[in-house]
Each structure stands twice: as C-alpha cells, then as structure tokens.
C-alpha cells in the first residue's frame, strides 16, 4: 500500500519536473528572449534598455545556469518577475488565484451534484419519457458552449431584466450564475460516463441475483450500481480539471471576473512570457495533484487496484 503511494508521488514529481523542462525549452525555442518579445509589442525599444532589463531579470546568463536557477526558484516558490506588471509572478498569481479557486471548486461540486441528480433520475424514474429526457441532457449540455450560455444569461438577467450586475459585485447571482454556467459544461462528461457505467453494471449477473432476492431498484442503485460506477466517474472528474481551466478562462472573460483564466489570457496577449511560464507550471502542478489525489482515493473504492498493481489500475479506471 505505502509502496503504491510513494511510487505515485514520485511519478507526480517527475511529471512536474518534465513539464517545467518542456516549458523552459519551449521558451528557448522562441525567436527571441522574453524581455525583447515583451518590449517589442510596444514601440521599438532602445537596445541598451533591453540589455539592461535582460541583465536585471537574468536572461543574459548561460542557459544551464538559467535552467537551474529558475528550477531552484520554483522549489522556493519564486516564479520570477511578470514583465507586464513588474511584480513577482507568484504575487500576481496569488492576487487572483483565490477567485478562480472559489469559482472552479464551487462549479466542480455543483457539477458533480448535477451529474448525480441527472443519472439518478434517469435511472430510477418509472416514466420512460422522463428517462429519455434525462438521458439526453448530458449531450445537450456538452453541446452548449460556455461563452454562449454565459452571454445569453447575462443578456437576459443583467441587461434585459436588470436583476444582476454585469460585473462581479459579490451579490448571490453574480456568484451563482458563473458557477452554474461553468458547472453545466463540466457535469456533462461526468454524467455521461456515470450513466454508461451504471448501465453496463446493470447488465451484470449479480444485479439479477439482487433483484431475485427482492432488493428494490433504488437500494440496488445506491448500494451497488453507484458504488461500482464511481471509480470511472472519478477518473473523468479528474480529467475535467483541464475543462475547468479552459471554462474558467471563458467564464471569467464573459463575467468580467478577475482570475487565473483572465490572467492567462492577458499574459498571452501582452506576451508576458515569465507569467505564462509560471501559470503553465502551476496548471501542471494542479493537474498532477488532482490526478494523484484520485489515484490515492481509487484503492478505497476498489481494493483490487493496489493488489493488481498500478498499470492495471489505469486500465480499470478507463
């Protein structure tokens, strides 16, 4: 058991290190150094200033030295300086990370609840008609673009009905609507996978045995189907962290919210490479972290995973 955990943690650290290296190499592959790129989006800069700024931020040092000093900085939480604001990248990220974390985690919780409700109603309902509607909900939800839903809701609620602000003003709706918009998109794949695995488990012989013993449909569903279907839904939920991030870029733009999504968008727009670099690494850490967490929860749900080794654990989850 502890061997499994240690192995997974070591793998995660390796992934993050590789991500850092890939980002570092990608930046080197750019036609110019970050300072020159940043300054040339404005009027053409004075070469002396560029040289001086490069020296100040350490971009004039040998590549290997840059690689290790940045890596060392990373370990101590120093992500370098954001060129567009002159402040440390870590500080810039910390300023707005809370907002995104709140939006994303609320949306995630809401998405999971939404997916559970859809699958439960779709499975347990006696009416064929309701079953059909709920079965068709996830494909519909995944087809609705985040920005479109956000725009339409804001147009109706903020502009036409004037019951909410176009800006984040701390009111209930200004929090609830972006969470809802993001959650709708997010819950679709979770619901779909959960539906599919509930359906396939339903076909298994042990369910017939339970029925023959006189168990009610809802008891079978909550005690057996859901529990057996949970690992695959959990894996999908972990993968959706990417969707969550992409969705929050759009949601934050549409709802004029501060956050990591907006920050990435602006960093890319103004070519603030160190900030982009910091954000990409942060995302790699978040992605790896969530997946690690899921892998650590998996054995609790399905003890076969540890005994069968980590390779087949992946296969089972998929």
């Amino acid at each position, binding site marked *: 058991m502890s061997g499994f955990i240690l192995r997974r943690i070591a793998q995660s650290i390796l992934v993050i290190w590789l991500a850092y290296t890939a980002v570092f190499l990608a930046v080197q592959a750019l036609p110019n150094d970050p300072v020159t790129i940043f300054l040339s989006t404005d009027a053409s800069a004075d070469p002396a200033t560029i040289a001086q700024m490069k020296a100040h931020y350490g971009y004039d040092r040998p590549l290997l030295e840059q690689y290790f000093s940045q890596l060392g900085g990373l370990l101590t939480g120093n992500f370098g300086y954001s060129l567009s*604001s002159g402040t440390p990248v870590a500080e810039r990220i910390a300023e707005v990370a809370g907002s995104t974390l709140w939006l994303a985690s609320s949306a995630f919780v809401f998405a999971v609840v939404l997916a559970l409700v859809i699958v439960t109603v779709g499975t347990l309902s006696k009416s064929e008609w309701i079953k059909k509607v709920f079965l068709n909900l996830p494909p519909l939800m995944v087809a609705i673009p985040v920005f479109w839903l956000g725009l339409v809701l804001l147009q109706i609620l903020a502009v036409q009905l004037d019951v909410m602000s176009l800006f984040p003003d701390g009111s209930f709706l200004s929090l609830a609507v972006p969470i809802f918009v993001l959650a709708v998109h997010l819950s679709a794949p979770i619901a779909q996978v959960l539906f599919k695995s509930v359906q396939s488990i339903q076909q298994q012989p042990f369910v017939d045995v339970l029925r023959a013993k006189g168990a009610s449909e809802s008891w079978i569903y909550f005690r057996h189907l859901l529990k057996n279907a949970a690992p695959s839904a959990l894996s999908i939920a972990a993968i959706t962290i990417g969707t969550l991030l992409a969705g929050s870029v759009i949601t934050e733009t549409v709802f004029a919210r501060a956050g990591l999504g907006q*920050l990435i968008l602006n960093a890319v727009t103004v070519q603030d490479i160190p900030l982009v670099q910091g954000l990409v690494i942060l995302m790699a850490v978040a992605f790896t972290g969530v997946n690690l967490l899921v892998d650590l929860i998996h054995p609790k749900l399905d003890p076969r995973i540890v005994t069968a080794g980590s390779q087949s654990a992946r296969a089972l989850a998929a």
Partner: protein
Amino acid sequence: MRFKTLAFKTSATIAVLGLSLTACSSSGSPSSATNRASEDGSPVSGGTFTYAEVTPINNWQTQAARFYEKANVLNSVLDRLTYYDPETGEIVGWIASKFESNKAKTEYTFTIRDGVTFSNGTALDAAAVKANFDALGLGIESAQIQPNVDFSAYKSSEVVGENQVRVTLKRPDANFLRATTSVTAGLVAPETLKLDNAGQSSISKIVGSGPFVFKSEKADEEVVFSKRADYKWAPETAENQGAAYIDELVIKYLPEVAHRAGAAQSGQVDLVRGLQPVDEQTLTAGGGTVYPASGIDLTANMAAVRIGSGKLADVKVRQALQVGIDRQAIKDTVLSDSYEIAASVVNHKAPGFVDLSAELAYDPEKSKKLLDEAGWKVGADGIREKDGKDLEVTVSSSNNSVVIKPAFELIEQQWRAIGVKLVNRAGDNTFLTNALVDPKIEFFGTRQFAYGGVGPVFGPATNTQTLNADEALNALFLKEQAATTEAEHLKLVGDEQRALVTEKVLSLPLWDEVQVYGANENAHIEFTSGTAPIFQGAWKSEG
C-alpha cells in the same frame, strides 16, 4: 446524431429568444426620464461615474501609457505641462502657464503655474518638472524605465529663476512641444520617480496632480478614484476650471464585446469603450449615446508596407494595391457612421493634413493595368504570378481594434478581384510578435500616436511601420523634425503624406482613427485629441 439535432434546435430557440428580447428593449425603452436634472443644460455635481475599459491594466508606468486603456484613465490622474485643444488645433497652457522657445527650436522655457500641488501635498514646482523631464528624456536606469520615444531629442533641463524650467535639446525637434501634451508625459511627484519598476507600475503608488486621486483597487476587476476637491488648474481652454463634477470615478473592465452596448444602455456603466459598429444603433435606439472620439493625435488606420519580401519592391504593385481597395465598401459593410474614410495618413483634423482622397479612389481597372505592367500575369488559379512566384502577401496586426480584422477580410476579397492573394493574420497577437519586426511580412495594420508629425512615427529611429524602407523618405522625416518654423514644419508634413501615400506608396490609409464610446443617456462627457475621456468635465443628469 439525434442528440446533436435536439441540442441545435434548443440552442436556436434560445438564441431567437435572446435576440427578440434585445429587439424589444431597443424599441420599447421609455424616453420620459431624459435629463431630468439638466433642464437648463448645465452640469450637475455629485455621483459616481463608472467607466468600463476593454482590458485590465497592470502596468501604470506613465511612459507606458501609449496604450488607450492606460492613457484613458491616467489622463484624469496626471496633468501635463501643455494641452492640445482639439477644437482650435492649438497648444495651450496647463501646468505651464507660459512656454516659449528660441528661434532654433533647441531651447524651450516653461513657466510653471503657481500653487499647483501633487495629491500628497508636495508642490508641483520647477524642480519637480525638471525631475519629470529627466525621466522622460533619459529614462530611469535603476527602475528599468526606458526614455520616452517622443523625447529622443532631449538633452538636459535646468531650473531657472523661481518657477521656470529651461529644456535644452540635442537638435531642433518640431514635435517636442506637442509631445508635452501627451498622457505619456504626465507629471508625477518626484517621490514616484524614485520608486522601483514595480512601484512606478502600481496605480496605488503613482502620485499626480490631476483631478482624480487613487482610492482603492481590486486586482483585475476595478480601480476607484475620488475627486480632488481643491483642484483648480485645468487646461486654459477647459470649461470646468475647478474640481470634477463627479465625486467618484470607478474603472471597471468589460472584456466581452457583446455586453458593452447593454452595459451602457442599462446604466450599469456610464461610459464604455470599444463599441462594435453593429451595436451602435442598438444603443442609440435604446436611448444611449454613441460618442465617436476622433484620434487627432494618431495616424489614420493603415496598412503600412514592408518591401522585404521583394513582391512589393516595384512601386507599381504598391500603387495597384492602393487603388485596389474600395474604402467606401469597408465603411458601408464593416464600419459605421462614426468612422470617416481616411484621405491621408494623418487625421482630417490634424495640422498639415493634405487631402489625397482623389489618389485613393477605388479603381480596379487601373490596378489590373499596373500589375500587368509590373509583369505580374494572372495564373490558372486567378492569382497573379511572376518568375514562378504567386502574388501572395500577408497582413499582421494586433487585436486592439474591434474592426481591423473584418476590414482586412473585405480587402482580401477586393484584392482577389485584381489577382492578389492576401493572407489575413490581423488580430493574431502571437503572429504579430515576430511579424512586427519582419520586413518580409508585407503589411502591418496599425495606427500610432503621432503628436503632430509623421516623422516620429515613420522616421528611422523608431520606425516599426515600414522598417526604414526608403532613404530619401528617411531624409525627409529628419528634415521635418528639424523644421524651425511652424509653416515650414506643416509644409514638410504635407510632403511626407504625399510621399508616403502617392509617390512611394508605403502606407495604405484606410480610415481615420476613432474610438467609439457608448454612454448611458444620463452621462455627459467630452474627449481629448488622443480619444481619452475627460472625466474632470464629466457629469451625470441623475444627481
């Protein structure tokens, strides 16, 4: 497949619902509430004025205020020595009550107005002005702040007498005085100049003498300013010579273009920048106001020509492309009545403007003839070719303008008709990063702050437009900047326009620069020649 159809039908229904709601509101808005407090039309004091910019601002360093989103706000936080009055086209006094130069235009003496203070209480005196000039002209090395490009002729300055500053230039610079009107030459307290880069970039630490003072900030969401009650040093020509009418100024960000008209109409903001042409009618129909703020300080929107790829080396090809653009069609399809078709590389109202509209008239037959003469023959696919090379050219631009990409899409079609293929990379900022300095990317869609002369924009020292394409032209730019009388300067500015547009054809002017603002029906505001809102004179009908 069935799911997709269902989803599509539902989306279509909701979309129609959304559209019909928009239509209802634009026709059914009551107009009885107009201007209840302004029956005599005089400004009303009080209230909070909310202004929505396009994108959050993280670097407020004064000299980086070359971007609208910064300049539009800093214009009301920082005063300048002089002010360019868009109505008369004259430079008038602001913090400098008097300014004069020697005959050779190498020495300027500014007399500083008495009693002006920064918001921290220190005096805006001659010494403070000198400190600002040094920062503008020489940069601040310890804070990695580069010199301001408009002050490249600056050599030194000294405090003379009690309240005068004498600036010495390395060479005559006809555009120097106009540059002192720019927001990028905004005066800050000497304490601000001593901060490091991060400090000078932070709005909470910038201390100015303007009508508004920083109050609070929420990163990437809003900045709040309160008015300075003791402000009494507005530009000479300003109607309001005292403190601002509004109590508080709130800057918010509305990155989503589709919400801008609605935000102004519903009163969630009083003013918003970056209205799309299609939203202008919706806003006016709903009772709001559309303000086209004319960018007299800037060049026209244009496609600057780089000849590095060789395809445009022959002036005949460039002429063919110049008259191969149907500018009226661009205005009719992509733009609106707020936009004016360019008749030169500078704005119609700019000093020295020369009307070249006859030379810019659409003439596709002439284009074809010129291209034939240049040896570019129509190939099998309708694209002209010469020596085995297709006449395929590329345009790059930033995504700052809401209309530049669709405009080039139309030009793409127009040029296709004369056998030229345009690769449209307008609005692709990542592509622009390299394209900006690549002479092989034939066109750069842009507009630049020019402050009265074409030389500073196209001249050899700072040129990112044509990348120093032409020696004779470069000589002309230097001559313009060295002009010592206004008459001579204006004549040379005229020569430059003719050379750039008709003789050398290194700029394809499209439309005059304008920033289109949307305002709520209760908001009243005017704009500078650099399209910045003047919040000091703004007021709201609702007390």
